[in-house]
C-alpha cells in the first residue's frame, strides 16, 4: 500500500476506505469486534492480540486513550442518547492522596487500574469499586516538575503494569498483586526530568517520553524491554542540528515576527542549542501496527519565552514526529510553530483515523489538537499537513512577541487544547476537543541556563481582570469546519470520551461531569461531583452493564478544587 514518491516521501495512494477502516478502527470494524470482544473477557492476561483489537473491545478499556489509534471512541452503545438521563453513580472509590487527578482508568477483565498524584496505583474491582491492592512508589528526595505532582495512568501487558514516576523512574508491577517486579531510571531528575504520562506498550516494548520542557532538558522517547527494563532504543526529540528551515509562518500561515537575521548571528556565536533545548514528549503516542510506526508530538523549547539564546527553528519542538517502532529512527515530522516563544507546545495525543485529503481520497490520517486552538489534520504517510480546522478559541494578537512589561495574547500558554486528549467518532468524522479561553501576558527576560532549575526565560501571567471560560468543540476533520461548540463556565482541562451511544463525556473544573449528544452538542446529562473533573473518562462493561468512569480530583495547573475520587456510573435499573 505504501508507494515511494519521487523525492523519497512515502504517501498512501488510492487506499480503499474499507481496508483503511479495517486497519484503524472504523465503526464497521468495531461492530464485528464487539462480538469478538466478549470472547476476550475470560482472558487473565493482556495479550498483544487484545491490545491490537482494543478499538472494538466493548468489555475492556486497555489503553490510556482506548486503543492504539487513540480515538477515545468506545464502541458500546448500552448507554445512549435515549437513556443517558438514567445514568447514576454505581460506586465511588476514595484514594489516599487528595491532589491533582489526571489518571486515565484502564480496565482489564473486570479489574480497573488507576493512579493518583505522587504515583500511587490502585487495582479495583470494576463492578464494585472495592480495592484489590494499593501500591505506593517510594519517591526519591529529588523531583523536578511543574504543574502538579500528576500521574496519568499505567499501561498493561501480559501480567504486568508499567508506570513512569515523578522522580523519572519506570516501574513494572505484578498486575495481580501490585508487587514491584523491576524499576529502572529513565533520566536524572536533578536535571529536570520527570514522568507524568502513562507509558504505551507494544510488542514487549514499553515506550515513554519525558517532561522537562521548562527545565532545559533534551527530550526523548525511550523504549524499554517489558520483561527486564533494559533500554532498547532512544529517540532524541532534539537532533544535534536543530536549526531547520528558518520558517517565518506557523502551520496556519500566520507570520511569527522572528528576527531571523539576529538568530543567524546568534547561531554563529552560540552554536546549536540542542543540549538544553527542551522538547519533552509528555503524552502517549499513537501506534500504527500496519506500518510499525509511532506518532507523537513534541513539546516546547527551553527556555519557554527567551528565544534569543536558542536560535533556529528548534527542531523537533512543537512538532508531530513519526518513528520506526523497531529502531526509533525518525521517519517524518511536521513542525507547527518554529522557534516558539509562547509555550504553545504540541502535547494533546495524536489520533490515527482515515481522513479525506484535498484530492478527495481517503488516506490514513493523523489528528492533533493544538494549544493554538486549531485541530491539525495530517497525512500519516509523510506527516504533511492536509488542513487545519477553524479556530476553536478566540485568537487575539497571536504571535505578538513577549516583552519585559508583558504582551497580552490569546490563546494563553495553557491553550487552546492543553494536554487533554481529544476523542473522535469515526462514523461521524468528528473530533471532539476541550479548550481554554485564558488570556495571558507574556514577559521575557534574558536568562542563562540555571542547571536544572525552572527555566522560563520570563513569565506567564494570567490576567485577573479578564474573563476566562472554556468550550467543548466538535470539528469535522474532513472539512475543518466546526460542527458545534458549547461554552463552559471555566477553562477546560482533562479529556473527553466518545461512545457508540452517540455521546461524548467530559468534566469541568467546577465538578460537573457532563454528557453531550455527539452529533449536536446538546447537553444530555450531568452530575455534580465533589472536586474538579479534570481527567479523561473511560468506559467498560462488566456482567452486562456498561460503565462510565472518571476521576474527580481537581487540577494543580488551573487550581481547580482538589479531591480523591474515582467515580463509576451506570444506568439505573
Amino acid at each position: 500500500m505504501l508507494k515511494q514518491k519521487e523525492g523519497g516521501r512515502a504517501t498512501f495512494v488510492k487506499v480503499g476506505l474499507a481496508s483503511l477502516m479495517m486497519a484503524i478502527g472504523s465503526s464497521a470494524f468495531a461492530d464485528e469486534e464487539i462480538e469478538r470482544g466478549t470472547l476476550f473477557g475470560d482472558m487473565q492476561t493482556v495479550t498483544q492480540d487484545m491490545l491490537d483489537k482494543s478499538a472494538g473491545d466493548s468489555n475492556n478499556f486497555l489503553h490510556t486513550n482506548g486503543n492504539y489509534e487513540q480515538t477515545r471512541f468506545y464502541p458500546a452503545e448500552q448507554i445512549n442518547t435515549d437513556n443517558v438521563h438514567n445514568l447514576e453513580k454505581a460506586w465511588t472509590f476514595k484514594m489516599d492522596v487528595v491532589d491533582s487527578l489526571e489518571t486515565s482508568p484502564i480496565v482489564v477483565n473486570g479489574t480497573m487500574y488507576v493512579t493518583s498524584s505522587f504515583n500511587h496505583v490502585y487495582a479495583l474491582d470494576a463492578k464494585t469499586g472495592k480495592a484489590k491492592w494499593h501500591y505506593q512508589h517510594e519517591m526519591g528526595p529529588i523531583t523536578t516538575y511543574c504543574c502538579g505532582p500528576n500521574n496519568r495512568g499505567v499501561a498493561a501487558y501480559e501480567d504486568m503494569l508499567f508506570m513512569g514516576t515523578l522522580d523519572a523512574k519506570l516501574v513494572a508491577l505484578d498486575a495481580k498483586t501490585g508487587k514491584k517486579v523491576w524499576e529502572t531510571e529513565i533520566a536524572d531528575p536533578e536535571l529536570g526530568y520527570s514522568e507524568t504520562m502513562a507509558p504505551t506498550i507494544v510488542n514487549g516494548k514499553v515506550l515513554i517520553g519525558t517532561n522537562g520542557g521548562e527545565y532545559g532538558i533534551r527530550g526523548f522517547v525511550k523504549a524499554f524491554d517489558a520483561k527486564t527494563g533494559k533500554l532498547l532504543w532512544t529517540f532524541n526529540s532534539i537532533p544535534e542540528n536543530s536549526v531547520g528551515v528558518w520558517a517565518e509562518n506557523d502551520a496556519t500561515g500566520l507570520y511569527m515576527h522572528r528576527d531571523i537575521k539576529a538568530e543567524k548571528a546568534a547561531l554563529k556565536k552560540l552554536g546549536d542549542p540542542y543540549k538544553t533545548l527542551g522538547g519533552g514528549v509528555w503524552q502517549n503516542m499513537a501506534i500504527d501496527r500496519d506500518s510499525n510506526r509511532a506518532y507523537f508530538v513534541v513539546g516546547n523549547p527551553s527556555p519557554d519565552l527567551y528565544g534569543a539564546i536558542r536560535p533556529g527553528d528548534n527542531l523537533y519542538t512543537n512538532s508531530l514526529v513519526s518513528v520506526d517502532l523497531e529502531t526509533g529512527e525518525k521517519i517524518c515530522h511536521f513542525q507547527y510553530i518554529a522557534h516558539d516563544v509562547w509555550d504553545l507546545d504540541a502535547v494533546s495525543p495524536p489520533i490515527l483515523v482515515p481522513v479525506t485529503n484535498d484530492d478527495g481520497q481517503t488516506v490514513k490520517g493523523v489528528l492533533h489538537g493544538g494549544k493554538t486552538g486549531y485541530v491539525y489534520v495530517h497525512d500519516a504517510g509523510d506527516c504533511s499537513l492536509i488542513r487545519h480546522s477553524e479556530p476553536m478559541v478566540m485568537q487575539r494578537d497571536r504571535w505578538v512577541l513577549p516583552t519585559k512589561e508583558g504582551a497580552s495574547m490569546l490563546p494563553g500558554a495553557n491553550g487552546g487544547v492543553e494536554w487533554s486528549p481529544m476523542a473522535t467518532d469515526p462514523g461521524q468524522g468528528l473530533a471532539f476537543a476541550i479548550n481554554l479561553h485564558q488570556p495571558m501576558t507574556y514577559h521575557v527576560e534574558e536568562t542563562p541556563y540555571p542547571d536544572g532549575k525552572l527555566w522560563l526565560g520570563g513569565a506567564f501571567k494570567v490576567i485577573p481582570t479578564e474573563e476566562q471560560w472554556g468550550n467543548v468543540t466538535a470539528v469535522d476533520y474532513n472539512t475543518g469546519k466546526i460542527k458545534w461548540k458549547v461554552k463552559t463556565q471555566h477553562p477546560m482541562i482533562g479529556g473527553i470520551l466518545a461512545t457508540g451511544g452517540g455521546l461524548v463525556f467530559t468534566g469541568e473544573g467546577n465538578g460537573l461531569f457532563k454528557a453531550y449528544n455527539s452529533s449536536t452538542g446538546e447537553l444530555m446529562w450531568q452530575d455534580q461531583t465533589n472536586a474538579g473533573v479534570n481527567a479523561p473518562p473511560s468506559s467498560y462493561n462488566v456482567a452486562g452493564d456498561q460503565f462510565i468512569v472518571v476521576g474527580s480530583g481537581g487540577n494543580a495547573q488551573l487550581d481547580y478544587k482538589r479531591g480523591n475520587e474515582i467515580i463509576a456510573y451506570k444506568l439505573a435499573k
Partner: protein
Amino acid sequence: MRYSNFKHLILITTLLFTGYAVAEEDKYSPVREKLETCFACHGQNGASSMGAFPILAGQEFYYMYVQLKDMKKGLRESAVMGPIAASLEKSEMKLMAEFFSKQAWPETNYTVEAEQATAGKRVVGAGQCVACHLGDLRGNSRVPRLANQHPDYLLATMLDFKNGVRKNSPAVATLLKTFSEQELKDVSDYLSSYSE
C-alpha cells in the same frame, strides 16, 4: 499477657526506640556543632520565632540543600549565610538539610484581614503559584513550602527576587518583578496565614 512478659516487652521497646534515637543522633553528629550555630537565628531545631529568619523545621530537604549550594556559589547573596555556606562541604549541607526537613513545622498563628487575603489570593492566581508550590502551598522537593512561613521573611525574600538581589531562581524573579510591592505584601500576609 503475664506481667513479667509485659515488662520485657516494655524493655525491648524502650531499647529499640533508644537505639533508634541514638542512631539518628549519630547520623547528624558530624554537623551537630554547625546545627547549633543555625539554631541561634533559626530557632531550636529550625523552628524560628523571629520574623526575619525563615522557619527551616519541616522545610523541603532538596530545596534547603540547593539553597546552601547556591549561597556558597554566590547565586543567593547573604552577608550572614554566605560565609557560613562557604565553609560547608556538600555532604554537610545534605545532612543539615535532612535534619531540618525531618522536624515538625511549628505553629505560627498569623492572621490576615479578609480584604488583604483576597488581594493575596489574586496574586497567587495570577502567578499560577500553586502549579509549583502545590495546592496547599507546602511545596515539594526543590520547591519550598510557603504556607505559614514568617511574613517578614517572605516579603523580604520576594523583594530580593524583584530587585535582583536574589538570583538563584530566575523564573521566580521575573514573575515577581511583574507585581507591585503592595501586591507582594498582600501575598506575604496571605501565605503566612494560610489554612486549608
